[in-house]
């Protein structure tokens, strides 16, 4: 077998190779160092989980009639951009065409993800608005203003959320006390526990009857899933 011609240098003694290995090593060290720094960087109180609170039963907010043909469950995170896209682009059409006509109702279940530093503040704010019967206006306003209070925008989301709460006409004394007391923390934790018990790993995740679908839904996709779930329910009832 023919051997590769040797340049007379031992492996590793070639200056070009040595420079190359040094460069590889430098990039690896800098890269791993940067990733380690980003991983170790304080992310704030991300989970904000309080294990001392009582364990409640999961309970979401219902939009639409409780006698609608189908109740779609949405597991969502207020800081998740895909949830924001769904709330601002798709949901208005769903309200007009499917909710107002009694075809469907949506149950919103909190699923705050640990990757979002400010999401717990937004979930608590929405529940406190719900305390005054304004969960859905707050839900919409929180998503519409997501870029003002999210982790990239501010380290003090409660201030921005209070401005949003004021904008939808909440009684601010009641709201501020509710947020300060973390009145609905245990309820949000119960809802998150439900999402985790179902092994969901994505927001938004929708449950259409027996079908679980993760990710952003356009109106057409949502409508098709609703129709399929209603048809499946009717077919099962005929058997």
């Amino acid at each position, binding site marked *: 077998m023919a051997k*590769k011609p040797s340049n007379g240098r031992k*492996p590793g003694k070639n200056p*070009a*190779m040595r*420079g*190359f290995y040094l*460069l*590889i090593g430098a*990039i*690896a060290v800098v*890269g*791993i160092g*940067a*990733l380690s720094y*980003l*991983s170790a*960087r304080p*992310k*704030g109180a*991300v989970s904000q989980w309080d294990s001392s609170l009582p364990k409640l039963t999961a309970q979401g907010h219902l939009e639409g009639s409780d006698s609608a043909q189908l109740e779609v469950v949405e597991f969502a995170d207020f800081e*998740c*951009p*895909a949830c924001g*896209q769904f709330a601002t682009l798709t949901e208005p059409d769903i309200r007009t065409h499917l909710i107002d006509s009694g075809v469907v109702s949506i149950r919103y279940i909190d699923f705050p*993800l*640990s*990757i*979002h*530093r400010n999401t717990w503040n937004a979930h608590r704010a929405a529940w406190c608005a719900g305390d005054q019967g304004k969960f859905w206006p707050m839900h919409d306003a929180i998503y519409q203003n997501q*870029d003002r209070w999210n*982790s*990239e925008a501010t380290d003090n989301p409660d201030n921005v959320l209070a401005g949003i709460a004021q904008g939808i006409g909440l009684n601010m004394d009641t709201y501020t006390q509710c947020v300060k007391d973390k009145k609905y923390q245990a309820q949000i934790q119960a809802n998150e526990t439900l999402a985790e018990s179902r092994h969901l790993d*994505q*927001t938004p995740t929708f449950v259409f009857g027996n079908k679980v*679908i*993760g*990710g*952003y839904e356009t109106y057409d996709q949502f409508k098709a899933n609703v129709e399929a779930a209603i048809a499946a329910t009717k077919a099962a009832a005929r058997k």
Partner: protein
Amino acid sequence: MTTRMVLALLALCGVLLAAYLSLHDLGIIGSLACGSGSCELVQTSRWSRLLGIHVAVWGVGYYVLVFGVAMAAVSERFGGDPRLSLALVGLTGWGVLFSGWLTYVELFRIHAICRWCVGSATIVAVLFALALLDYRAQARTVVGE
């Protein structure tokens, strides 16, 4: 510096980029550095998972494989083996096809662009171009012999 060396260096950059996105998916890195805010939309979309595993994690495996083959091709022991050039063309060609599909999904399904994904697609495209250059150079060497 040879074409294969540049290829190995770029593949290592790809490993680090994919590792960054994977750490975000695992919740180890809080939020992605993404000015437009569309990175997370793409990263959390339904197309971000393949066989239940995040695309970024597949990306780490892919770039590690390309890096390993490129390092073998750089070494004096395996450097003369033409099969490594072919393997690099095949691997990076597959990467271009997969990245092309992901870019299509971003543009026409998710309607959002993640700059880190664009970075990865660019790395893969350059890797493929370098692999083709290396393959042509190897073919000429064999003909010359």
